[in-house]
């Protein structure tokens, strides 16, 4: 597959230049207007300076920007740990329904549709995760982690040992958010080194778990795509120490219909609906990170949740010992609508098939590439090693083959890691093209790699210059120009 990404260049006086797309929306196209207002002068500003462009100009500007961007609909996007699935279009339509555009502060009586959908999604997620109660409030995976940690904290406080349980154990291969969310909640983070097989080292866990353990956070399969086969022993060790077990839902797309966190001994989990349930990533968000718990912890969940009354109506309620709120309202509602629609479309057979094909695709792709894959057997993703090559260079070169590269240099347990997750959406033909891109880069020399990419909108971008000479707005660019 050959690929040349769009690059709109500035052509001001009929002279074509090779400059980067000169933005119509820029400090060069701003207008300054005097602020005249019915308010007294002392309460107002004097001027406002912003771009002043017509609607047709803007339509073209953003269309051109979109052409200089790459999404799942552009081509393969096997970005490990991110589950870049196809986002069904009909879910956009249902989220855009006027009846979905409601304010949060209306009465329950007038919001029966919204509450019914939320109740339905709580129920779907509980069944899928094997959990007893779900809160939809966290607006992202990391927010779900934070909410889950608050639940664990409230539980330990209710048990009387909240003060002494001041540690959270996190495997060294875990997502960075696990560490950061634990620290945000005020916990000391105990990093657990992986065993030789890339999984949790039971002896190390035994040694780490104790009276100070509040929570052990784990994703299963882990970031190497490996199922933690000893999950029951892990749960026993953590529970015997008086701690709780947390499931990071980032890798749930590997398990639908095959195993459920609740059945493995996990007490708390979050769901990344923008991964597993196909809501679009939107260039970095919004997502949603609902949190599920076993029945003993339901009373601590964020408020409000939704329940069905005896008369069949739906109402919001505050769990008895709620940790309070983690979002100003109730999270990213439109994302939840899309997730509900996706689950309602796929049902049991579709969800089970999604995971089956995701695992098949990862295994098939792995079997077709030359890069070494040190750990297995893996599920929905695998981590190959670029060996003597620089994984970051490999990624840049893959861009020239019209594919988005894997996640690179992480987890660190694999040298020069290429963390690859093709998801269930790719055909065999596309996977063969992906494998061809991997192999082509595998056989290229360092010089070619370090000169890449060549066919994308931008050539290799200077990260050092960006960080050293910070230019974070038009104002900073303007300052640049005046220096020249």
């Amino acid at each position: 597959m050959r690929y040349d990404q769009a690059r709109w260049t500035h052509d001001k006086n009929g002279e074509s230049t090779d400059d980067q797309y000169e933005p119509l929306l820029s400090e060069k196209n701003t207008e300054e207007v005097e602020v005249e207002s019915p308010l007294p002068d002392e309460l107002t500003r004097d001027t406002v300076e912003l771009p002043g462009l017509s609607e047709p100009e803007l339509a073209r500007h953003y269309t051109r920007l979109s052409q200089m961007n790459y999404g799942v609909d552009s081509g393969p996007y096997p970005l490990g740990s991110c589950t870049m699935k196809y986002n069904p279009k009909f879910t956009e339509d249902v989220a855009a329904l006027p009846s979905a555009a409601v304010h949060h502060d209306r009465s329950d009586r007038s919001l029966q549709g919204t509450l019914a959908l939320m109740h339905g999604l709580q129920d779907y997620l509980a069944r899928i995760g094997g959990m007893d109660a779900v809160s939809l409030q966290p607006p992202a995976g990391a927010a779900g982690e934070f909410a889950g940690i608050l639940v664990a904290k409230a539980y330990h406080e209710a048990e009387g040992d909240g003060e002494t349980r001041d540690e959270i154990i996190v495997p060294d291969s875990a997502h960075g958010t696990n560490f950061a969310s634990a620290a945000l909640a005020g916990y000391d983070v105990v990093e657990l080194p992986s065993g030789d097989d890339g999984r949790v080292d039971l002896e190390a866990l035994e040694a780490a778990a104790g009276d100070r353990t509040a929570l052990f956070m784990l994703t299963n399969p882990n970031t190497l795509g490996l199922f933690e086969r000893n999950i029951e022993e892990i749960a026993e060790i953590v529970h015997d120490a008086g701690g709780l077990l947390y499931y990071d839902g980032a890798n749930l797309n590997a398990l639908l219909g095959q195993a459920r966190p609740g059945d493995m001994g996990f007490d708390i989990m979050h769901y990344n609906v923008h991964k597993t349930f196909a809501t679009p990533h939107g260039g970095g968000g919004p997502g949603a990170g609902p949190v599920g718990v076993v029945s003993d912890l339901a009373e601590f969940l964020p408020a409000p949740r939704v329940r069905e009354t005896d008369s069949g109506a739906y109402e919001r309620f505050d769990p008895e010992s709620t940790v309070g709120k983690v979002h100003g309202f109730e999270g990213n509602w439109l994302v939840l609508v899309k997730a509900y629609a996706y689950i309602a479309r796929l049902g049991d057979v579709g969800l089970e098939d999604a995971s089956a094909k995701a695992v098949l695709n990862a295994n098939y792709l792995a079997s077709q590439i030359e890069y070494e894959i040190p750990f297995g057997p893996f599920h929905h993703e695998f981590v190959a090693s670029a060996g003597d090559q620089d994984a970051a260079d490999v990624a840049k070169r893959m861009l020239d083959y019209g594919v988005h590269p894997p996640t690179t240099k992480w987890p660190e347990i694999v040298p020069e890691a290429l963390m690859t997750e093709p998801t269930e959406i790719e055909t065999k033909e596309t996977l063969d093209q992906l494998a061809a891109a991997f192999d082509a880069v595998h056989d290229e020399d360092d010089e070619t790699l370090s000169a890449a990419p060549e066919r994308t909108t931008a050539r290799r971008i200077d990260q050092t210059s960006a960080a050293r000479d910070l230019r974070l707005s038009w104002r900073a660019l303007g300052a640049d120009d005046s220096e020249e």
Partner: protein
Amino acid sequence: MSGRNERGERGSPYAPHTAAETEAMLDAVDADDVTDLFDIPESVAFDGDFGIEARTERDAERHVWGLLSRNDDLTEFLGRGHYEHYVPSLVDHLSQRSEFLTSYTQYQPEITQGFLQALFEYQSMLVELTGLEIVNASMYDHASALAEAALLAARVRSTDGDRVLVPEYLLAERRDILENYTDGAGLAVETYGTDDGNVDVDALAEALDDDVLMVYAENPTTRGTIEEHLADVGDLADDHGALFCLGTDPVALAVLQEPASVGADVVVGDAAALGLPTAYGMGLGLFATREEFVRQVPGRLVGASEDAADRRTYTLTLQTREQHIRRERATSNICTNQAWVALRTAIHAAYLGPAGLVDLANDCVTLAADLADRLDDVSGLQAPVHDRHHFREFVAHTDQPAAAIASDLEAEGFAVHAVGEHEVQVCVTDANEHAVDRLVAAFEEVA
């Protein structure tokens, strides 16, 4: 529907494998069946089902329509942190372009210049509006941005203090999140007094000491009033070495005092007042601050750079602040953010331009003032309760219990807030002004 999709296949409609392809792929990996690829011990394998029926796209769509149609069709005069302005069609159509919508975080900037530039433009426009040099590429919402501001204050302030001062009018929900986020860092959230809907400067002076990390105020406030003493708040905070954090939104910023000019060190708020219709509280956390704090900022930052051909390009920068690199020492745990909402906000702001945005903001002043005047003429109502200028919304006193009035109005097809036993709050913008006459008539019926 017996679990078959419309192509007659059992499975996900978005997994395209034919039976022959599946067979060939299984052969290649030396497996008889896909289930052989799962390395799950039998003791924890799931052999039940979820009991969720599969549907065709048409049926799934109708199912969700059916659910949502149970929402009453009310004309909302609601605000208190979640606002609606008319969103031009341009915003929907361009933000929904697949290349934007289906992309992820710009970890490979060479292939995602479009989104990076759009975020850079969002940052730039908010820099112009706030007067502060640094705007990040989004937080979740107003409340979490406020909480992150307090944590930033704790990192950059040299004092040993741990107090964060918030005004009496702060929404309970925002305070709850502020406390949840700052509890781990050992901060104490305390309330200072207000006077007729504004900061009580004397009460603030009394509450302030050198152990205060941050003073928070809003403009406009949760009760819709425009603050008249912001420069005093900025000076007082400065006298004690505390940061001044101001809560606002991009529409209000078009006419109200520029935050930088009143000494604000951090500006937070919900920027989705531009770009999103009401969405049950879904928003866009605005976070702006001064250049000197840039290395302590939470969340993603887009910066300009050059590529190997020496062209102007954009990239995520200062990523060593972030959780995927710095882990427990990161400036925040935020990863997935609200980037797509920021794109929508930027399109909406650019669509309005400076004159359009000022006009919209002025409408928020005059519409609120006019509606308050008219409600004040209704027997049983006094509006506004605060002798201040207002923005979008105001509080009215009701002789009858406010809850009963709100409930009666709902029966007439309108939603307003009951915020006290005898107080309702009403929010009016370009999105609902067409219904103002009917709302006043309804108030005349029920008040």
